[in-house]
């Protein structure tokens, strides 16, 4: 599909074909008060040279040479040029929606392979073609649990990404779903006693993230057992997919909701990303969104289709399982290419580097007077430390030295002021970690 300008002659030709004299006549059925009479408030028109200059100027605004210790749900990982080369092929980049199975075999096969990879990573039996991002995937997982159990109460760990919880609350606000938070313990894990106390036979789902927002790895087994004993479904959210290279797949979950950004998608401005929903075969009819399926054609050859589409909005209207009617096909393709390039060993090696470098960074930071570890629990590539002063002030000082500092937890968690969430990935070098520790030490020594 190409976007081409229409000349006045072409407009006239089209109007003549329809049988309208003018654009005004064509739109005459729209009441006058809804018609826009003034020109759209957009700049231009620009010439080709002006458009190129505009984008050059914008590109020049990008910051270069910075080292980042910011994670909090979006992670800076290595990406291969191969990923971009493949997703920029016209067959993938410009094709929109794969409704016509017979002419979109490549797109459908790519989606099917994405689903297969997501099942392998999550230890689940079926995964969909992707959601918008981790936050909508988690919310859809909760709505799925609501449909499956017929219950209206949801228990969400407070250690789940604050923005994921915000998205869930937005959906719940007018739908009668009751969302309650389960606190975290002194070591940053889900408070199992509080969970047990809140579990009754009206709970649809318990949502736990691991590694959680503080980077801490949760022990799912006892939490899942308590959840299942009450007849609720256990939903595991994963914001940092690379952790699955090392930690056990979240097989205890009835539904897994994951952010796929870590698999070959750049942080950008916070998107576009790709969300993942994976679950059990027996729950597939309540799964939102698209599913690609493998089948055979009339001649016995392998082929791919969109399957179970009867649950979807374009067919079932307001009774659809979800209001999502599309997927992040290009981002899911990037994840598929990225993971295929890495392979099982590559992903494990990448995860191992994250863990080792984060451990090293923690040990370096703990040498600084006044810096203490907040949560004494196993973590992956993020950890929380106490600063003796405001994290935001420190971050402002670090930025002058071209260091993007840690996330200030005090904003979403008032109880965690002066706590910094530090992220270290395989992209961070030993020298950069040492430079960060040194800059932090100097920043803390400065008089307030």
């Amino acid at each position, binding site marked *: 599909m190409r976007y081409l300008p229409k000349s006045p002659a072409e407009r006239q030709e089209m109007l003549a074909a329809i049988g309208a004299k003018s654009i005004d006549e064509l739109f005459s059925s729209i009441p006058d008060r809804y018609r826009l009479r003034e020109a759209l408030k957009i700049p231009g028109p620009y010439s080709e040279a002006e458009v190129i200059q505009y984008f050059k100027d914008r590109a020049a605004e990008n910051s270069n040479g910075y080292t980042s210790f910011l994670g909090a749900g979006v992670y800076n990982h290595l990406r291969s040029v191969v990923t971009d080369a493949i997703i920029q092929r016209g067959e993938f980049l410009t094709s929109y929606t794969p409704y016509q199975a017979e002419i979109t075999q490549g797109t459908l096969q790519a989606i099917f392979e994405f689903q297969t990879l997501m099942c392998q990573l999550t230890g689940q039996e079926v995964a969909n073609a992707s959601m918008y991002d981790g936050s909508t995937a988690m919310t859809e997982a909760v709505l799925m649990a609501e449909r499956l159990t017929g219950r209206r109460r949801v228990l969400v760990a407070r250690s789940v990404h604050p923005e994921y919880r915000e998205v869930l609350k937005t959906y719940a606000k007018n739908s009668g779903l009751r969302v309650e938070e389960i606190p975290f313990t002194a070591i940053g894990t889900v408070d199992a006693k509080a969970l047990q106390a809140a579990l009754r036979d009206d709970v649809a789902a318990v949502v736990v993230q691991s590694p959680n927002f503080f980077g801490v790895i949760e022990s799912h087994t006892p939490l899942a057992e308590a959840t299942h004993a009450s007849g609720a479904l256990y939903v595991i959210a994963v914001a940092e997919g690379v952790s699955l290279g090392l930690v056990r797949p979240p097989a205890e979950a009835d539904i897994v909701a994951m952010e796929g950004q870590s698999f070959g998608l750049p942080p950008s401005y916070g998107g576009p990303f790709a969300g993942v929903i994976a679950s059990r075969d027996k729950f597939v*009819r309540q799964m939102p969104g698209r599913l690609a399926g493998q089948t055979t054609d009339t001649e016995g050859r392998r082929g791919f289709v969109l399957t179970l589409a*009867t*649950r979807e909005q374009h*067919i*079932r209207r307001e*009774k659809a399982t979800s209001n999502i009617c599309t997927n992040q096909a290009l981002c899911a393709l990037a994840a598929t290419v990225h993971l295929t390039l890495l392979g099982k060993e590559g992903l494990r090696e990448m995860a191992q580097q994250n863990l080792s470098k984060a451990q090293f960074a923690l040990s370096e930071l703990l040498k600084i007077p006044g810096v203490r570890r907040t949560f004494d629990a196993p973590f992956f590539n993020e950890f929380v430390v106490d600063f003796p002063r405001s994290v935001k002030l420190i971050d402002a000082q670090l930025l002058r030295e071209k260091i993007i500092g840690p996330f200030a937890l005090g904003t979403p968690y008032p109880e965690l002021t002066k706590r910094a969430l530090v992220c270290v990935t395989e992209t961070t070098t030993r020298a950069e970690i040492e430079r960060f520790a040194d800059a932090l030490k100097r920043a803390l020594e400065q008089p307030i």
Partner: protein
Amino acid sequence: MAYPKQYRYTKEHEWIDVKGNLATIGITDYAQHELGDVVFVELPKPGTKIEAGKSFGTVESVKAVSEIYAPVGGEVIEANTELQNTPEKINTDPHGAAWLIKVRLTDAANLSGLMDAAAYEAYIASKGKEASA
């Protein structure tokens, strides 16, 4: 396929067979034919209260997912669990083995709004004409 004389029928193409205060409910041959190959049925659990005119489940075919509407109000005493594994029975024996639920009627069943077999056959014949008109 013949439409049993003792059944009553709805405009939404369900049938109901009332015996005393118990009723069996299914979908008609016309409905299964319109739906095409049925691949899945979603039915209420025993104990569920159903209300006349309200949806109590869904039938999914390769083409669409359709609501099933209750011809009468009552309490579900049994759902046809056989259909979980053999939903295609709805296509082959919709008026017999592929019944959907058995219901205990809440009060004297109000069947006055429903059609008998002759009226239903006339109704679907007129729908056929509409479609071809």
